[in-house]
């Protein structure tokens, strides 16, 4: 699966969590722009893990601040 396809799938997954309809770009931050709290993060991460059948530990999540970083991380985890 290439980056564009991963991007497209995550864009769909993020919709129900993007309550304010923030425009999603690679630089969009989860904590700042999307105002995700810890419970939202857990549900969103679970949705991504289920979609791609991967595991994103909290240690890995700590390195992911923006949407673009998330797409990159999912691409990487898929490669493993």
């Amino acid at each position, binding site marked *: 699966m290439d980056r564009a396809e991963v991007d497209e799938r995550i864009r769909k997954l993020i919709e129900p969590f993007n309550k304010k309809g923030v425009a999603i770009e690679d630089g969009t931050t989860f904590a700042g722009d999307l105002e995700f*709290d810890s*419970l939202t993060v*857990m*549900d969103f991460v*679970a949705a991504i*893990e*289920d979609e791609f*059948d*991967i*595991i994103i*530990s*909290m*240690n*890995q999540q700590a390195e992911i601040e923006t949407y673009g970083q998330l797409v990159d991380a999912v691409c990487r985890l898929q490669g*493993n």
Partner: protein
Amino acid sequence: MSEGISQPDAPIEADRAASEKDLFSKFDDIIGQREALLAGGFEDPFNLVMEKVLSPTRAICNGRDTILLGTYNYMGMTFDPDVIEAGKQALEQFGSGTTGSRVLNGTYQGHREVEQALREFYAMDHAMVFSTGYQANLGIISTVAGKGDYVVLDIDSHASIWDGCSLGNAEIVPFRHNDLDALEKRLRRIPEGAGKLVVLEGVYSMLGDVAPLKEMIAIAKKHGAMVLVDEAHSMGFIGPNGRGVAEEQGVIGEVDFIIGTFSKSVGTVGGFCVSNHPKFEILRLVCRPYVFTASLPPSVVATAATSVRKLMHGSNKRAHLWENSKRLHGGLTALGFTLGTQEPQSAIVAVIMPDLERGAAMWEALLHEGLYVNLARPPATPAGMTLLRCSLCAEHSAEEVETILGMFERAGKAVGII
């Protein structure tokens, strides 16, 4: 107009404070929230002083005779005459403190005796006593799960469990509270060959709900994970021998590590881990929160040992505590309060408040009635809830529980919650 004249400096003062950024600036939000609460004229819910403690269930709080319904003194052992006598004797014979680590000069006869009492209480091969329950979780989790291993834990886990994860180097994977499917999926995706530790609690202390340990442990074992269960809030009370929820659900033999505390049913302070793992004793040398701190004072381990042994024969008290829990839960439900669980599952009955403001008002109204409960709020609580957490004691009489219900009814109507 006169206000404007009397406060000409206020904005400048505020600017000055805001511009002085230092390491404490990150606390400004919580300082503001707290000041707003106190400015509303509330008594500070987090600064209560008990001037006198009359019994496990009564104290003089802020000058008032108060029924205690917010302690973890589930079995009422704090004033047990045998427990107090054991503490006095140890204080006289062994002094006020050990001034040393368990692995150097801090293991006295009493530390050995309380570990023996725990092995008998749980019918397990090994017991290791820490200076607090917090340190027991901190130490065991951070030491057992190392780099490359995975800790899979419930999202509503206690702070000591989370801090144990932070202290260690393992990969941390949370799952939705008590969700079997979420646990299973995460375990299934962990890379082949990685070590796995599943961390669960018997009773979750905020809502007082119990975990489906039987099902969860079966899933963990299917995936080759070790299992740690924190039974802090169930010891002495739940299970045929008071060993906790895992015993109650018939799966205690499948648990690799049980974490517990002396600061709840046992009635003093300290923490422990019991296990049947054949290599367990090596943890005494490699577990930093065990090694690099002073051991418990002799009087504390003596009171703990006496109390643990008495809890082995506490079935009548357990039965009365269940009666109290059921009556309080049923009574509060009938009055129209929203509770954390549909039915009583433990000695904790959590009353859900609409918001922090009314929670604080209700807390204060109860205190004025002569009742102390815990006001719990985020981040300690799940889903941003404000809770009035009631924890019952085996020493609360049936009449006291009725008195408590009357207090809740008057306070709840005064504050407009029911």
